[in-house]
């Protein structure tokens, strides 16, 4: 039997969590394999069978209370398709409007509270500063106050549009449950204006603290955090990024278009591999095949999420965000393979969503009362896809002629990224562990590779504002614990 050393990172200690990282060393003390385990399964694909399909947008929000909006809307779009119904323009735009607010909410939370501590404060900083307080110290108290105000504003817009912020209820087959009143729109606009200022400030902060800092920039572009993969994201008819609707485009690691397809053809392009040691599957590009946890052009692994969307699209449709996008790709070569640049793309997307939100509010169509199309066709089968904050989300339902669900397939963003997350963790570990020598910084560095994706494991486990407690155990070849590192 091969002799191995074991390094185990429980992102959330044994009893608390739903995800774990293990790193196995070979005889010579180099990284042999890295495992990122998802240890929980709830089985929505099974227990949704038999439910009336119009209930799905409300049932599937309960997959995740942190990102319920993307599930609500992907599900509603799948039910539109099941009933072969095209919602009125106003309904689509009201859905997108609420979604933009949610996008800002989710991205800002990640940037300031979750990813920020790793990146803004930096991995070399003392652990007691690597938290939201440390981020606020670095960016200043004024920005800190604005962060809370922006999150609250987003929450209020979500309540106005969705009925509730956590677990919205407004989207139904053929449209939305209720039009927006002039008064609603006034309230939304006031908040949206503040959110635009806030997003601009966030992009500036990122450029100042990360891009213009030699130390941070070098970290972002180091080979340890580079992974050359395929990318997938949603684009509109002009090739620009879209988060609510459009075709899915895949590019290869050199940036060439590999495939472009409608969401309902996803089965021709994506397949999923099953490993016995985790509850989460590994999606890959069907026309390449599953080649294991490796990157490169010959690997079927593709990535989704902010960086992937930027790599795939020809640009962003709003002016301020487009300018920031151009700046990013003047600095990094497109397609950018720097995993830590997910953070950069994420803050620029916050700006895009804010601009798009204001655009939609000013569109006279969202004032229309016509927000419903009553379906007349016999329900059958449908796919709904949106870009969730963390990447492409696909819901696929099949029903009987009464509209009762017979089959459900879900591929969530973190699942699409599963192969990429594992490969990134392995690569970071390889760069930091040589001949059994484990660098003191490995705990932080491996975590950074993992957290850049903002993995949402409640779509298995999820962590909120604050730190994800990490523990790293090193075992000798007899599997005896010889060292334990944890923070803070």
């Amino acid at each position, binding site marked *: *039997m091969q002799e*191995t050393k074991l390094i185990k990172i429980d992102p959330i*200690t044994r009893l608390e969590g739903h995800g774990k990282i293990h790193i196995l060393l070979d005889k010579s003390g180099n990284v042999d394999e890295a495992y990122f385990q998802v240890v*929980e399964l709830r089985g929505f694909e099974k227990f949704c069978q038999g439910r009336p399909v119009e209930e799905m947008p409300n049932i599937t929000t309960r997959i995740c209370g*942190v990102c319920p909006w993307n599930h609500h809307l992907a599900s509603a779009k799948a039910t539109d398709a099941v009933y072969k119904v095209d919602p009125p323009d106003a309904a689509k735009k009201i859905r997108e409007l609420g979604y933009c607010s949610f996008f800002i909410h989710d991205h800002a939370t990640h940037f300031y509270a979750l990813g920020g501590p790793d990146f803004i404060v930096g991995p070399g900083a003392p652990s007691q500063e690597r938290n939201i307080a440390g981020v606020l110290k670095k960016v200043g108290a004024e920005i800190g106050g604005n962060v809370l105000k922006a*999150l609250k504003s987003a929450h209020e817009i979500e309540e106005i549009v969705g*009925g509730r912020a956590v677990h919205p209820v407004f989207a139904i*087959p053929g449209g939305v449950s209720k039009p927006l009143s002039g008064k609603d729109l006034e309230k939304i606009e006031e908040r949206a204006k503040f959110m635009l200022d806030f997003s601009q400030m966030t992009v500036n902060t990122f450029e100042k603290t990360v891009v213009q800092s030699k130390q941070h920039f070098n970290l972002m572009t180091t080979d340890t955090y580079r992974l050359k993969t395929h990318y997938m994201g949603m684009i509109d008819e002009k090739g620009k990024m879209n988060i609510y609707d459009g075709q899915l485009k895949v590019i290869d690691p050199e940036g060439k278009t590999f495939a472009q397809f409608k969401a309902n053809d996803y089965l021709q392009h994506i397949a999923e591999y099953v490993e016995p040691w985790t509850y989460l599957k590994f999606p890959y590009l069907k026309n390449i095949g599953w080649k294991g946890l490796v990157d490169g052009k010959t690997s079927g692994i593709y990535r989704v999420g902010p960086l992937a969307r930027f790599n795939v699209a020809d640009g962003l449709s709003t002016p301020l965000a487009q300018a920031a996008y151009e700046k990013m790709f003047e600095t990094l070569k497109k397609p950018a393979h720097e995993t830590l640049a997910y953070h950069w793309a994420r803050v620029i997307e916050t700006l895009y969503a804010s601009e798009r939100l204001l655009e939609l509010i000013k569109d006279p169509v969202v004032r229309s009362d016509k927000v419903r199309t009553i379906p007349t066709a016999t329900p059958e089968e449908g796919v709904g896809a949106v870009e969730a904050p963390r990447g492409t989300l696909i819901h696929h339902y099949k029903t009987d002629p009464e*509209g009762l669900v017979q089959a459900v397939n879900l591929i969530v963003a973190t699942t699409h990224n599963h192969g990429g997350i594992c490969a990134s963790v392995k690569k970071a570990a390889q760069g930091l562990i040589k001949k059994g020598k484990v660098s003191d910084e490995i705990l932080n560095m491996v975590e950074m590779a993992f957290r850049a994706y903002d993995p949402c494991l409640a779509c298995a486990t999820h962590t*909120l504002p604050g730190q994800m407690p990490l523990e790293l155990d090193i075992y000798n070849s007899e599997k005896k614990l010889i060292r334990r590192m944890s923070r803070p």
Partner: protein
Amino acid sequence: MSQTKLKLAIGLGATCSGCDMAIVDLAEKLTNVFNAVDIVFWPTASDQKLKEFEQLPDASVDLGFYHGSIANEENKEIAHLLRKKTKTLISFGACACHGGVPGLANLTTTKELFATVYATPSTANPDLKQPQTKTTIGGYSLVLPEKFDTVQCLNECIDVDYYLPGCPPEVPLVEKAIEAILTGKLPAKGETLAPNRILCDECPRKREEKKIPKIYRIQQIIPDQEKCLLDQGVICLGPSTRMGCGARCLEANMPCRGCMGPTSKALDQGAKMIASLGSILGLEGEEAMTEEEVKQLMDQVKDPLGLFYMFTLPASILKRRNMTQK
């Protein structure tokens, strides 16, 4: 109010973390209430380690919230630990109180669930591989916790002091609960910290208690926003659901799906709903209907099991589908 802060611990079971979001929301909106609280354990949002929590003296924490259902051994261990360390323990949210949406898994088994999840149309799995509780690679075992066959509510596992339902619980209810603890004005043990009346009592819509001759699914009708949805033929769980949520879904022109669970006057939410429907389904001159006509009307309610027990199957008298007959 006393000078010492209230010590709060938050434990998680099988959860979507929406309850955590509700607590974050509370912290944003009600800084004064939250400033009176010192959070000593909250794995989702702060750093305190489980080990530190384990080392605290028993019953040294004033208040505990537990959200999520009990779906595996780890969920159970956390629940027992939280019980041991806290003086007052609140079952927080729909999953802990009644099983919640994932409780619908009690309509199936873990075996059936695996057989479905690892054989979806996108899964390339000709050998029908499934995750194993133990996999050995290079002499090292990777272990996965086993999923229970039946999802349980919190009170099946530990002794619960109070219940705070909702998916997630609404801010005013949480605020009231914390205030009651701070001032020592708590009701008798075992109570639900929400009014013991049905949702219809706080619903702003006008109800005429009409007989319904036809049932509409939500996609089939554009309902009047002022009138009772049941009067308009849309199934709404208001009559079988506890009030306290502010009727937010109704506000959004959508029917209630019962996330607050039943009042204490109803043993079972679904049974109460069937009884309520029984009295309103039909024509004004119902005596004239044949049995066949009544059946046809009842058949218009699609999936009554999933609809009437969407949030409460594990807490219901049904509990789960009887698997022995399959």
